[in-house]
């Protein structure tokens, strides 16, 4: 009974993403047509003169001289068939480009999030346990500063310190040629693990370090603050007092009784932040030469490569929705009240 209700809800949620995704696709379409600039013109680049007819012919060929509503209906029809279209500038299927770039972006976001959690949660918990002590004040101040430093600045400083001065980390890229694990999922660390390729794993992790930390530091600061405040709430709650009254040892009180309940707001935050990590990492990808979707999409915007932008925006939106869905599922695990309501 309970499972089936959950299933129904899941199906409901997944079905509900369809109109949202379509709306996002539509918004991307409108935005792209509204911004000035012309893909054909960009495609023709500089150099020798191209005649007006040539440009016009290319526009016709790409269907760019059709009325907007026709272009839109063509685009939507393509979507319904599962066809994301063809990149104007790169003359290859958009789906292929996205499929190639998405694992890099997701892997980076996942590691950035892991870093943020690994740093933010313990700091938040300790700050809460040592409320109003020097540790609490310093970590709070540091987290404020962490939030207020732009990622591109952090990235360059990281390269300056850890790559150039200390030589610990490579400056950019995902993995050197020759070390790549066999392609299974596209996530290098996962592939390396699956194939038992330890050198590849080590190298991939080393390459991930700087970009993931750059991207995750701001999130870590926010996670620390949220964890701290929800931990403070929970530590003052009756059930924590009751657990102590039962004689539960302090570490178990902190972890089993307090942290578990304090994680609920953190999970919400993680869901939201993960979305923004995915959608906001273009700058970090550019700095670290990370071959991810962010660079593809920024490139495509500046080149007015309509199909690529439209499809990427949809992918972002879908990922965002999916992450939200997973977050909600996670609540049902963390908070039994939600499962049955």
């Amino acid at each position: 009974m309970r499972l089936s209700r959950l299933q129904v809800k899941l199906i409901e949620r997944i079905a509900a993403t369809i109109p949202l995704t379509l709306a996002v696709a539509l918004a991307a379409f409108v935005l792209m047509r509204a911004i000035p600039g012309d893909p054909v013109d960009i495609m023709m680049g500089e150099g020798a003169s191209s005649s007006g007819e040539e440009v016009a012919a290319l526009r016709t060929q790409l269907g760019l001289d059709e009325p907007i509503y026709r272009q839109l209906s063509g685009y939507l029809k393509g979507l319904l068939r599962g066809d994301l279209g063809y990149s104007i500038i790169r003359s290859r299927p958009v789906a292929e480009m996205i499929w190639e770039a998405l694992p890099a972006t997701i892997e980076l976001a996942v590691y950035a999030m892991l870093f943020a959690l690994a740093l933010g949660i313990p700091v938040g918990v300790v700050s809460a346990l040592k409320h109003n002590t020097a540790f609490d004040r310093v970590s709070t101040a540091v987290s404020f500063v962490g939030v207020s430093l732009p990622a591109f600045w952090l990235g360059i400083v990281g390269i300056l310190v850890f790559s150039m001065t200390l030589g610990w980390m490579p400056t950019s890229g995902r993995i050197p040629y020759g070390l790549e694990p066999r392609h299974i999922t596209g996530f290098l660390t996962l592939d390396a693990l699956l194939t038992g390729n330890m050198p590849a794993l080590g190298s991939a992790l080393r390459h991930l370090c700087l970009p993931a930390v750059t991207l995750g530091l701001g999130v870590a600061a926010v996670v620390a603050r949220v964890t701290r405040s929800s931990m403070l709430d929970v530590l003052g709650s009756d059930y924590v007092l009751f657990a102590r009254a039962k004689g539960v040892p302090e570490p178990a009180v902190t972890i089993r009784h307090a942290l578990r309940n304090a994680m609920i707001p953190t999970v919400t935050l993680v869901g939201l932040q993960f979305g923004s990590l995915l959608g906001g990492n273009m700058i970090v990808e550019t700095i670290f030469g990370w071959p991810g979707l962010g660079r593809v999409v920024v490139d495509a915007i500046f080149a007015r490569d309509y199909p690529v932008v439209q499809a990427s925006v949809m992918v972002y939106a879908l990922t965002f929705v999916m992450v939200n869905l997973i977050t909600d599922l996670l609540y049902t695990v963390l908070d039994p009240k939600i499962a049955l309501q």
Partner: protein
Amino acid sequence: MACSMVSNMVCGMVHGAGTAAATGMLLDVCDLHTVYPSARGDVRAVRGVSLAVAPREVLGVVGESGCGKSALMLSIMRLLPRPGRIVRGAVRLRGVDLLGLSSGEMRDVRGREIAMVFQDPMTTLNPAYRVGDQISESLQVHRMTPSGASISPPRNACVRSRLWQARRAREEERDYVIELMRRVGIPSPDHRHLEYPHQFSGGMQQRIMIAIALACKPRLLLADEPTTALDVTIQAQVLDLMEDINREMGTAIVIVTHDLALAGDFCDNIAVMYAGQVVEWGPAEAIMEDPLHPYTRGLLLSMPRLGSRQPLRAIPGEVPDLTSVSSGCAFAPRCQQRTDRCEAEEPPLQIASGRMLRCHAVQAEAHNRARFRGCVAR
């Protein structure tokens, strides 16, 4: 019986620490002081409370909200939320001063020797865990088997037999949990131990909390307003349950309440608290029928009684600010019998008419009455 108990307690009080064990007291609180530092100065939540509880006794601690009842309970458990702290005094359990124990030793006492239940079961049960697990957690943290023996890790046992033992232990534990839930009156416990707190009604949640508290068969149960959050009918059921437990399991109970009538019905002895102090402490019937302290009287008069045609009277004035208690009697500003002495000098806790009393005015009067009756409590 109650009368002699009080005299025993008084002995404990009068003669100091050494005799408490000798007189068979289970819990003996002696001149306990507790403060909460705050921006406006220290809040003196408990100011020299002395109390004792005999085995199997039910003691009611009564007073208005903010009089330090809960702080007293938490002080006994050594669970005062920071930055609250115990300034001085002693809390002896069977003669052992809890304040002198290491935190590890104190943890062994909690849940196993003294258990505590709280006012609001809704917020006191951890929403994230099944109730059965929350009940058995008490057993696990005290490494106890349902039969009450401490688990000592088997030596030289082969892995398989250890696994088997572990499974056995788990099954036993589950059975015990179900039994316990049945004992506190939860219907179909064999299913419901797998449910989460929010799936129970308030009364049932309170029963679960009691089950958790009883899991290790403690000698003393501290109940902090256990029925305040419940409907009246449910209140009665929960109280009945506690009464049963007291009778059948022999668990001594300290019940904190603001409801004097409830305490009168339910308790052997009653301690009335005002402004962090015990102002009157004695057998329940004695206090209900012949309250001596003006505050106790006020409490009784402000309490509606069935069949009584007396108009209800509120105690004039407000509860004092505990950061700045004057040198005199804390109740003096609200007391109609106050004298100059009341405002100047804090009355000591003294024996009067078969009870302990903290009042200058009644002191003299009671003394006279006692002489007239020719019976001085010893």
